[in-house]
């Protein structure tokens, strides 16, 4: 009754503002929805989000130097790394005191391993010195400078102290610099020596091969998707099952099957030799190189291209092509001017999916890629499980994640994420 005369916010029947009243009535529903998703949310948080964040944090975390050698790090502040002269006795004393504690706690080998990433030889130096430092009494046995150099001549090298000082910071960009073939030096970031620069090349190769894989997926998937979308239901269902069949087979089995197919004594080579198309001593090398990776990954990722393409093509009504033809357009003009432009969102969705999947792919390149056909993810796996340089692995992973997110963002800007349809 008072609606016409009242000013200010709309009121509910009992006089509370309508917005507040609405929010209260929706709160119950929201809480119930939250309770329903809570178990999954918790699981994802604990087993996925938190591990990933802690892993990403490792790419900058560098507390080990300052934690293991607290007094040394303080003394290093007073030493001028540019002078080219060895540190004073005070620093050696602090180092011995730190090391005695560290050796007791068996922390010195870990520190050695960490510093070994930056300069080879550090690991064994720490291990060897550790045993002898154990026998030194920091209260009585000074001065330590010459004693330490006697234990290992490395302690008399200015470079050793420069490395320790450079990496004494608790948060470092060193891993990221390593990930892009650079290193942290007292003079700032510098390029790695020529023979150590492999990661940028590997990033480039990963992107390049992913592009080729995406391209060949588009070429192979387009006609199949067109058939799927335009054949009668019964036939297209059958075709769809054939497309989905690989999903029901283990990835490892499919990749190994390619190994059987492509190797030098494999099905393809044997057939070609039998047909006389290839000489027995000149069998094709189509595995353990980039070619093998591209073939196997195109095959494995093909369904991810077909499905979005198909779902977009399915929504293009046949009346468009009919209308175009009734207006006098030939089959080709109809396809190119009318059908193809409308199928582009499908190509976009499939491409982004295949591309993102392939730049992070690991198993297939590992099995069929040899040394020339491996991806950046294989390098990450190597640092995780073999070299145990988790910091570098984390930095590489972070860069990869950033690249994917950037691509995703570009895609959202260009095609719009609402247009992605996966069936």
């Amino acid at each position, binding site marked *: 009754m008072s609606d016409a005369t009242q000013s200010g916010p709309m009121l509910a029947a009992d006089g509370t503002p309508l917005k507040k009243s609405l929010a209260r009535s929706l709160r119950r529903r929201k809480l119930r929805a939250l309770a329903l998703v809570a178990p999954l949310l918790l699981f994802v948080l604990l087993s996925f989000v938190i591990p990933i964040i802690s892993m990403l944090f490792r790419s900058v975390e560098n507390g080990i130097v300052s934690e293991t050698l607290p007094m040394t790090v303080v003394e290093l502040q007073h030493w001028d790394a540019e002078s080219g002269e060895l540190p004073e006795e005070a620093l050696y004393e602090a180092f011995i005191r730190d090391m005695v504690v560290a050796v007791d706690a068996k922390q010195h080998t870990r520190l050695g391993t960490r510093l070994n990433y930056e300069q080879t030889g550090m690991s064994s130096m720490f291990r060897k010195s550790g045993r002898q430092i154990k026998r030194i009494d920091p209260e009585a046995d000074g001065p330590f400078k010459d004693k330490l150099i006697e234990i290992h001549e490395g302690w008399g090298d200015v470079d050793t102290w420069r490395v320790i000082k450079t990496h004494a910071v608790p948060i470092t960009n060193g891993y990221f610099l390593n990930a892009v073939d650079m290193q942290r030096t007292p003079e700032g970031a510098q390029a790695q020596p020529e023979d150590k620069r492999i990661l940028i090349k590997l990033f480039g190769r990963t992107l390049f091969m992913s592009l080729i894989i995406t391209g060949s997926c588009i070429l192979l998937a387009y006609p199949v998707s067109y058939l799927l979308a335009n054949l009668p239901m019964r036939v297209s269902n059958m075709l769809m099952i054939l497309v989905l069949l690989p999903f029901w087979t283990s990835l490892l089995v499919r990749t190994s099957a390619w190994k059987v197919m492509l190797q030098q004594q494999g099905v393809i080579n044997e057939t070609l030799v039998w047909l006389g198309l290839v000489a027995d001593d000149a069998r094709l090398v189509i595995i353990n190189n980039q070619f093998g990776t591209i073939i196997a990954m195109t095959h494995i990722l093909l369904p991810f291209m077909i499905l979005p393409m198909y779902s977009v093509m399915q929504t293009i*009504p046949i*009346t*468009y092509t*009919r*209308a*175009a*033809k*009734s*207006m*006098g*357009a*030939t*089959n080709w*003009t*109809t396809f190119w*001017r*009318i059908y193809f*432009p*409308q199928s582009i969102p499908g190509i976009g969705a499939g491409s982004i999916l295949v591309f993102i999947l392939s730049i992070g792919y690991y198993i297939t390149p590992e099995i069929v890629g040899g040394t020339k056909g491996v991806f950046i993810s294989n390098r990450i796996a190597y640092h995780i499980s073999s070299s145990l340089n988790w910091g570098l692995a984390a930095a590489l992973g972070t860069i990869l994640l950033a690249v994917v997110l950037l691509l995703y963002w570009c895609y959202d800007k260009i095609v719009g994420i609402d247009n992605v349809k996966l069936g």
Partner: protein
Amino acid sequence: MSNDAAFVEFQHVQKSYDGEILVVKDLNLSMPKGEFLTMLGPSGSGKTTCLMMLAGFETATHGEIMLDGRPINNIPPHKRGIGMVFQNYALFPHMTVAENLAFPLEVRNIGKDAREEKVRRALDMVQMGAFGSRRPAQLSGGQQQRIALARALVFEPELVLMDEPLGALDKQLREHMQFEITRLAHELGITTVYVTHDQTEALTMSDRVAVFDDGRIQQLAPPDLLYEEPENSFVAQFIGENNTLEGVIKSINGDECVVALDDGSEIDAKPVNVHAAGDRTKVSIRPERVEFNKDRLHADAHTLKATVKEFIYMGDVFRFRLSVAGNDDFIIKTRNAPDAIKLSPGQEVEIGWLARDCRALDA
């Protein structure tokens, strides 16, 4: 070419999709140039299939389709030069309105200037001159419909096919577009084949209507004949409102016959497709031709006793539902005139009609 020569002709056309069922059975149809012909029928009656065969998107299983004297069975759709309007308009969503209209001209290699001139004229023709740069999605249903029409006409085809083009519009817009389409078709002198399942549309727009059912043309006639003189009970039932009474022919006397209804009462009728006494028949009578004012009937006319079941006030007309000879859905309509008689439910009346208004059709 003279006007009465057939411009579009179906000769014994049959169509089957699965080799078992004929969707179109022996279709024969001949249209002169400039005619507006509507194919009307329930869904599944084969009307759209006929249209698609004419457009070239379906091939006839048997028979010949002729356009302007040439058989077109083997001519692909894009060489037939037939304009087409689709039910969902089929405007290309990735092109502007002007680009949509220019498309048929472009594929005909018409120069840019001539193209723009024709597009402008076509847009003006449907009063959409200001919308050339819009996208189809930015237009309302009625506007899209106009553009679809303009696009089908812009390359000046002699034959235009329309597949339920007004199906998605609301009632008022539909009535307006019906008028627009017929006006344009007649002004431009194009031959039009129009498919619909809406009988009002068929009656108001067409020169002739072909009523389809079960793969055959049940009747092909101008709208007035179709309504007033249906040739069989399907057409009588399908077109307009209709009362049906079932019975047996008692006697035929030239243009009139007597039908004995199943409850024993007798009525006058006009024999249409009944042949001899003893034939079963369905008689058909339009609600507005039923008379319950005895003064207006012949003295010797047969009458039936009826009970009023319901009175429905519709403004311009009164509508009564009666129970007549065992049929509880017998409808009568009278005009709302100053002297109109209002019957009330429960009232008993006697109804009758002129024999020529009551058609004895096949059972």
